[in-house]
């Protein structure tokens, strides 16, 4: 990698590093049970839950599988399953 003068790095470039490869458990979000409360979006330390229209989507490119969203979901709409590599 080329080092710029002052070693300045552009903001947001960490998106080029996919932390999803760290995951050993995968959160599965069931929209049938979801109450659209937004808790999972708020509590994800990796900004990996997004809202698209009315649907909540987990971004497996970055989700590390910590399980926080599932633990905090008040509707039990997120379950953790073993990751198949």
């Amino acid at each position, binding site marked *: 990698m080329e080092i710029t003068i002052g070693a300045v790095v552009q*903001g947001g470039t960490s*998106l080029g590093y996919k932390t999803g490869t760290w995951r050993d458990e995968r959160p599965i979000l069931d929209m049938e049970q979801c109450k659209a409360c937004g808790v999972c979006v708020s509590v*994800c330390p990796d900004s990996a839950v997004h809202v698209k229209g009315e649907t909540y*989507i987990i971004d497996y490119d970055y989700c590390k599988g910590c*399980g926080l969203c599932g633990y905090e979901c008040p509707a039990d709409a997120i379950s953790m399953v073993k990751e198949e590599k």
Partner: protein
Amino acid sequence: MSTQNLSNDQELFVSGHRACHGCGMSLAVRHILKATGKDVIVVTPTGCLETFTSPYGYSPWRVPWIHHLFENGPAIATGVVAALKAQKRESERVVAIGGDGSTFDIGFGSLSGMLERGDDVLYICVDNGAYMNTGGQRSSASPIYSSTTTDPAGKRSLGKLQKKKDLPTIIAAHGVPYVATASVAYLKDLQKKVKKAMGYHGARYIQIDSTCPSVWGFPSDQTLEVARRGVQSGMVPLFEMEDGEVTKVRKIKKKIPVEEYLKTQKRFKHIFSDADGREEIQTIQALADSNIERYGLLKKTAPQDAEVQD
């Protein structure tokens, strides 16, 4: 970037950072930036936050960010404030975010100077109660009887023997306009305090209890649960101080015994296996009770003038 074309557009602290699974500190920082908005320059001393956000070429920060030494965060922040002033850049503000090791211990002289001068900096301590980036050595923020790598629990050791330094009080004694404590368990409250602090000028301080699954020793899905129990037991009092007076506290909804907090974490495991453990638990319970009394955390003991917040 993402194969599903999902957007990080709303975020100033984006995906791809390298904090551990379920890291409370990374969650705190994400919400700090939501509250400050984009017109800030962030200053970060050495520690986990610096390390997990600065592999060369991969920055999650969508605001200007500078890393420097472990011990000089506040002095660097002061310098950035001076530079902004010289350039007449009035819309940009400075926020320093440091760990407890740098804030409570090694950068404390620098911090005290910044507070005494009243420099226009919001200093936030993301407190995980030890020097995590180097493996979990004790700091003056580590709680009493926690096992750390420099005072590990063992046959003849109960872990750290001193209680946590009361830094918010020491900071308030400098005569600064705003001091607050927050927790990752209550993210809206955290954001509200950051926004409020940004409304003041001069030196301001917020201390955020930042639960750390990796070193405290709990499963990564329990980050908020452990933080909540800290607050609900009285171990982590949440309050605001304006001009040296406690003006708001977050009430405990349902008080839990400190055991309910301690038993969630491996760093306190020894006090449950040790025969003398009862005594240590009682000591910790007494500390929690004195927090509850001092800040009026239960409804019936609330000081008359303190505003109640849910």
